[in-house]
């Protein structure tokens, strides 16, 4: 076991950071929006091969990149392209950005669908790979910090189907959302820690109050746990680890949301304050792949056998 990045991983993360640093600003005209999708950065990531890390290195390398990308205020689609696609289509690179779509809620808005060129529609058993053309989806107004969209006409779910890939898609969607959560949560915490250090009330920094300190430590516990669990799930490629990572992060969103917004005061509810670019990513991730409850039930099945099954499965 080794919790430090090795030389290759460090080099990869540093290279990613350098690119992100160049693209972390939001244009003045879009500063007050709920979400800023950075299409130029998306192109850079796509062309530079970063999104191919799982194929060329391993899924852990890809998960590290997903977490990094989630730390800047602009949003790019990395999770589905870098983690789900390689698991579903190891020998092919589908056109990105990619949206992960729940087939049971096909008519509902989905994260990243407004900008996606490809959708993976999880039908439970199988996965349909849908190419998205102009006019197939419409953008949906939302407080979530991703470009949400929905299909305006029912996509063809029969043309390109990956048989029996539903569980794999769920697994990697969980890894991707946990990695994305880890990065966005850490960035939101760092942002808030900086804020409470400089904002003073009653003549002292907000961050000097124990009630604030202790809750911020709890927030950082969640982010740290999320990071390791996400990375372990990417490393082990085990569905159980993916369930655990998703369950852990999704069950804790509420605590983070409340405390981080609370400590930013009224500034935290303005869109010019940046906080929402991370926190409303967390909110968007909260219910995906069945949410905390769905993941927890899967953990129970995997650790202790399916309901009605009194035997204990090895895991």
């Amino acid at each position, binding site marked *: 076991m080794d919790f430090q990045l090795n030389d290759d991983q460090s080099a990869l993360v540093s290279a990613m950071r350098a690119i992100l640093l160049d693209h972390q600003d939001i244009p003045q005209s879009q500063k007050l929006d709920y979400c800023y999708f950075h299409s130029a950065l998306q192109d850079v990531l796509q062309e530079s091969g970063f999104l191919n890390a799982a194929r060329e290195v391993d899924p852990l390398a890809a998960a590290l990149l997903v977490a990094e990308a989630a730390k800047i205020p602009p949003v790019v689609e990395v999770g589905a392209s870098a983690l789900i696609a390689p698991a579903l289509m190891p020998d092919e690179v589908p056109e990105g950005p990619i949206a992960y779509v729940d087939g049971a809620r096909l008519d509902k808005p989905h994260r990243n669908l407004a900008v996606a060129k490809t959708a993976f529609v999880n039908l439970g058993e199988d996965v349909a790979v849908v190419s998205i053309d102009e006019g197939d989806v419409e953008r949906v107004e939302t407080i979530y910090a991703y470009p949400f969209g929905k299909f305006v006409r029912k996509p063809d779910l029969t043309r390109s189907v990956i048989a029996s890939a539903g569980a794999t898609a769920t697994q990697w969607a969980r890894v991707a959302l946990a990695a994305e959560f880890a990065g966005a949560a850490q960035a939101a915490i760092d942002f808030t820690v900086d804020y409470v250090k400089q904002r003073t009330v009653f003549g002292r920094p907000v961050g*000097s109050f124990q009630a604030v300190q202790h809750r911020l430590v709890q927030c950082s516990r969640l982010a740290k746990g999320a990071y390791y669990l996400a990375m372990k799930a990417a490393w082990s490629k085990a569905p159980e680890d993916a369930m655990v990572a998703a369950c852990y992060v999704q069950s804790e969103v509420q605590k983070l949301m409340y405390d981080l917004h609370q400590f930013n005061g009224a500034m935290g509810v303005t869109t010019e304050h940046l906080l929402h670019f991370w926190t409303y990513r967390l909110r968007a991730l909260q219910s995906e792949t069945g949410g905390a409850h769905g993941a927890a039930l899967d953990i129970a099945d995997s650790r*202790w056998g399916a309901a009605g099954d009194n035997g204990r499965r090895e895991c």
Partner: protein
Amino acid sequence: MEFGWPKEHVDYRRRVREAINELLPPDWEETYVRESYASDLQIDFSREFCAALAERGLLTPHWPAEYGGSESEDWQHFILGEEMKAAGEPRGPQYMNVNWIGPALMKYGNDEQREQHLRGIASGKVIWCQGFSEPGAGTDLAALRTKAVRAGDKYIINGSKIWTSYARKADWCFLLARTGEGRKEISVFLLPMNTPGISVSSYPGLPKYGHLNEVYFTDVETPVSGLLGEEGAGWDIVIHALSYERVGVPRYHTGLHALDMAVAALKKEGRFDDPIIRSRAGMIAAQFEGAKLMTYSVVDQRVKKLPPNTDANLSRVAALEAVNELMNFIVEFLPDCLAGGHLLLDDYYRVNVPAGVTGGANEVQLDLVAQRGLGLPRMS
């Protein structure tokens, strides 16, 4: 970064498990759960058990060879701790000996003290207790008032200690006493518990018997040779000694084990098909898994000899959250466990009643992480 166990660690864990299986008597669980690891019975048993562990090289494997160890790395020491805790800590109080009392003696003891004590500890037959807390000094340990006054070639000690686990059966006390008026003018004494003037009384408590003792010192005389390190060096010694305990008890390991027991009990009652119960159990498992990785990251830092930081405190906070959830789960869905229905879960619950207090109150862990980890300003 990678999360696998190398073969040598897997083999080591197997070796520890085999030793535990072979050395524990068939009625161990039954006896253990009735009595707790701090009970007189278990403390006596620990002298046999640890001696046998020592013979197998499994008592002080991480110690330097010159003191009877095999200089194994922290991972192995940690695996050993996990397996012992999961088995109900058959080492009794001797986990303290090997984890921090021995290492503190190696660092601060003189030749005579090392010669006198380390062999005994490594033999698995000597019981120590930790005399730090007092009625007026717990979290604020530097407020302690037990006094040691130098008189020629000895010290005379007066005062009292409280919550001194294992004191009733201990051979030695690792005692903190004030040797000056300044807040941190504190010294460590290695004091035989059979010295005249020492008396111990015990209290019953929620975490079973053996932990809650009070130790009184009335004109207790100890030779100057009983002083560990310099006079007044006690504070530094304690801070250093307890840094060996930074990672603390592997609560995720016992927690996941207890969660499995709770699920088995629910299955037996035919209640584990309830999706609400299943979901709650799954969430608790996820919390323990998170705490586990955070703890392992600290062990990894230690193996690599990286400078200490507050990750250990954070991992304790994480484990405590999960423990609290599990205690709640047990009572909510298996209430009779605490009324004779399940001795092992009753024991788990009771051992963990003070989990947020022992080894440093949780609020202090949170303060440390906030101020040293996140760099938040101290309240002036």
